[in-house]
């Protein structure tokens, strides 16, 4: 490494193929230039580089301030703003550095990319967090990082920053930190004691995909720390039972994210993996991130229609069905039907395949069954269970409670009467559901004859019959 010390703050610039013959460092060299870079420029580069991380939630831990520092935390999380893409801005989401020794093909910060590089100093991160926090711009800090020199070195830098924030600035707000795969377990343990949430990105759903697109990362190195954090949390719970004031280890739990659409996995595979993560690793959340094409690489799929947002949407819907509605992956998808329906949400799709159990009597059905009715969510189901203690409910009451009747009416009875005379028949219900201008995600609107017949794309996996119906309806409308 060639070090030039000229001004004050140091940062690194990688120059591609400059004087290869002189410094034979894999065709690369690091010039440690010390040049004044304003905090504004750094924030620009490092938030730009962090924006593809989806886990921006600030939820999972309820903590009052102790009156001596600054900050508290609310279990439900607080959204402080929304960016132009409609995603919430809750945490100051930045990378510590976008320097990286890895060359993951999908990542904008891979080492073979010629992008401006910058690094924060721990003091700069602390200052930004504190000043943003007291103005109520943010709920806390989300700190991730490219891998500088080695995983351990990077993790240590992150630890120092968080330590400073917690102990010198007495910051008691929310902190979410990415664990760097391959970092020493001791470091992960140390970081876990002072942050609220940790996450390790699974990056790609399968080990095969990881080998293909992230050659420097090994699945073992990702699942290892995940297991460690899980064990740490459960051990800590036992400690807390005995010693109420014992320090808490990752109190808001851990999460992970995977990229959807960069590798050819089916929805069924992805959901099976997510289900396993929830069951075996006790994850709080699995995030799905529609693949955004930022690098041109022969191993990456071309996505002319933009990121697969509809697929991401369906995966999130199914994810919520797993976590809050008591569904299992096997019920939603199978080997023979590996992808979600484009036109209908997974719950509606499930209901249409199980018409034998419908219609359901609202005043009798148990909570679990209520949850399975399309148009009834967790909140409405809870309200129904509470409200019917005081007498039978009718359709008018259901409407007031917040049930979406235009969807639910085909599947329910009140006092053993249906709302209208409707048939319990798949085609009939689909036709009616699609005419009420169900709020369809953007991409469905683009369905056209040619696309369907030419591409047998996994994205457009509707029941052929349903798609025909949809097109007839669309033609009729226009």
């Amino acid at each position, binding site marked *: 490494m060639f070090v030039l010390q000229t001004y004050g703050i140091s940062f690194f610039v990688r120059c591609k193929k400059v004087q290869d013959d002189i410094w034979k460092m894999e065709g690369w060299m690091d010039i440690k230039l010390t040049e004044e870079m304003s*905090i*504004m420029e750094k*924030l*620009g580069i490092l*938030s*730009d580089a*962090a*924006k*593809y991380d989806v886990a921006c939630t600030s939820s999972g831990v309820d903590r*009052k*301030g102790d*009156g*001596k*520092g*600054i*900050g*508290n935390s*609310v279990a*439900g999380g*607080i*959204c*402080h*703003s*929304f*960016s*132009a*893409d*409609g*995603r*919430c*801005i*809750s945490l*100051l*989401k930045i990378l510590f550095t976008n320097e990286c020794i890895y060359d993951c093909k999908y990542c904008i910060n891979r080492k073979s990319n010629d992008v401006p590089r910058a690094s924060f100093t721990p003091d700069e991160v602390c200052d*930004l967090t504190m*000043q*943003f926090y*007291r*103005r*109520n*711009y943010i*709920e806390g800090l989300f700190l991730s990082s490219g891998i500088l020199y080695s995983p351990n070195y990077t993790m240590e830098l992150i630890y120092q920053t968080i330590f400073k924030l917690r102990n010198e600035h007495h910051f008691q*707000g929310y902190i979410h930190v990415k664990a760097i795969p391959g970092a020493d377990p001791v470091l992960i343990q140390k970081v876990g004691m002072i942050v609220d949430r940790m996450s390790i990105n699974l990056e790609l759903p399968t080990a095969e995909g990881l080998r293909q697109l992230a050659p420097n990362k090994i699945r073992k190195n990702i699942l290892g720390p995940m297991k460690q954090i899980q064990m740490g949390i459960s051990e800590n719970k036992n400690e807390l039972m005995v010693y109420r004031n014992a320090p808490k280890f990752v109190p808001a739990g851990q999460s992970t994210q995977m990229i959807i659409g960069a590798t050819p996995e089916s929805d069924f595979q992805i959901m099976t993996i997510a289900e396993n993560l929830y069951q075996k690793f006790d994850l709080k959340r699995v995030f799905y991130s*529609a693949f*955004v*094409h930022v690098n041109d690489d022969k191993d990456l799929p071309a996505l002319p229609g*933009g*990121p697969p*947002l509809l697929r991401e949407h369906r995966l999130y819907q199914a994810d919520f069905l797993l976590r809050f509605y008591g569904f299992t992956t096997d019920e939603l998808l199978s080997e023979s039907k590996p992808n979600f329906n484009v036109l209908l949400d997974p719950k509606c799709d499930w209901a249409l395949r199980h018409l034998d159990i419908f219609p359901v009597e609202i005043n009798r059905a148990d909570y679990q069954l209520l949850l399975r009715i399309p148009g009834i969510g967790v909140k409405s189901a809870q*309200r129904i269970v*509470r*409200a019917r*203690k*005081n*007498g039978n*409910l009718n359709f008018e*009451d259901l409407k*007031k*409670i917040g049930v979406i009747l235009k969807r639910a009416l085909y599947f329910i009875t009140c006092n053993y009467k249906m709302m209208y005379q409707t048939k319990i028949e798949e085609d009939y219900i689909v036709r009616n559901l699609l005419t009420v201008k169900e709020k369809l995600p953007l991409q469905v609107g683009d369905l056209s004859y040619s696309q369907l017949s030419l591409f047998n794309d996994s994205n457009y996996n509707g029941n052929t019959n349903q798609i025909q119906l949809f097109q007839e309806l669309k033609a009729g409308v226009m």
Partner: protein
Amino acid sequence: MISPYGKRIDQYILICQDSIEGVFSAIYDAYAEKYDAQTTRIQTSEDDNYRLFATYVQMEPDQEKTRKVARTVLREFGEETYTDICRALASEDADKADAVYHAICSGLKMKNKCELMGNLANDDVRHVFELSRYAGREIMHMNGFLRFQELEGGVLFSKIGPRNNIITFLAPHFSDRLPLENFVIYDEVRQLFVIHPAGKQWTLVTGEYLDEDRVLKFSDREKEYQELFTFFCQKIAIKERINFNLQRSMLPLHYREYMVEFKIS
């Protein structure tokens, strides 16, 4: 007045102050003076048109009566209902006092009183529930969307213009969050101030006037942090996923008037 069918058709309309204290005192008096709940209304403002067969009674707020009603509500219905009622009374709705009064009346007749707010088939309860949800949502939003600006002496100042009278619900959250800061939250619509001196309890100040041009001098670094945050908000958006409709439904335009990241462009 008695109708030919033997039913009372005259109404009593109790007018009370627009505050939790005013409404609770009116509810106390309605019970103490044995008004019939079916023919009695409680209103926080007078009607534009007076009704012919109605008797209007002016109510005075009273601390002792308020405390008694609050105690009864807490004891009989539990904390959840009490919070819901307080939130509903913070909302801007002409019928809020009446809805709360009748919800309490029907609640006291129920067998399982803590289930009052679950009885959504009852119109009054539902009305209270909806008002409470409306105000509650705004409280939740304001906890996030409120912005402080640093004045010259280091005091944090925030101006808000909420639709419901929620400033007293915001104060506990922020004084827990920023215990060592001097801050002021100013409700522009209702001319209310919450003042929190560092390390002390917050207080509500009413009846003061704020001369913004004279008093508000921002600190040197304030502008810099506002620009940094605005820049951050722009950078964090993924341009392949731009969706302004989604942004607008998550963050309605009326909040943006007071938010620094939408001011500078």
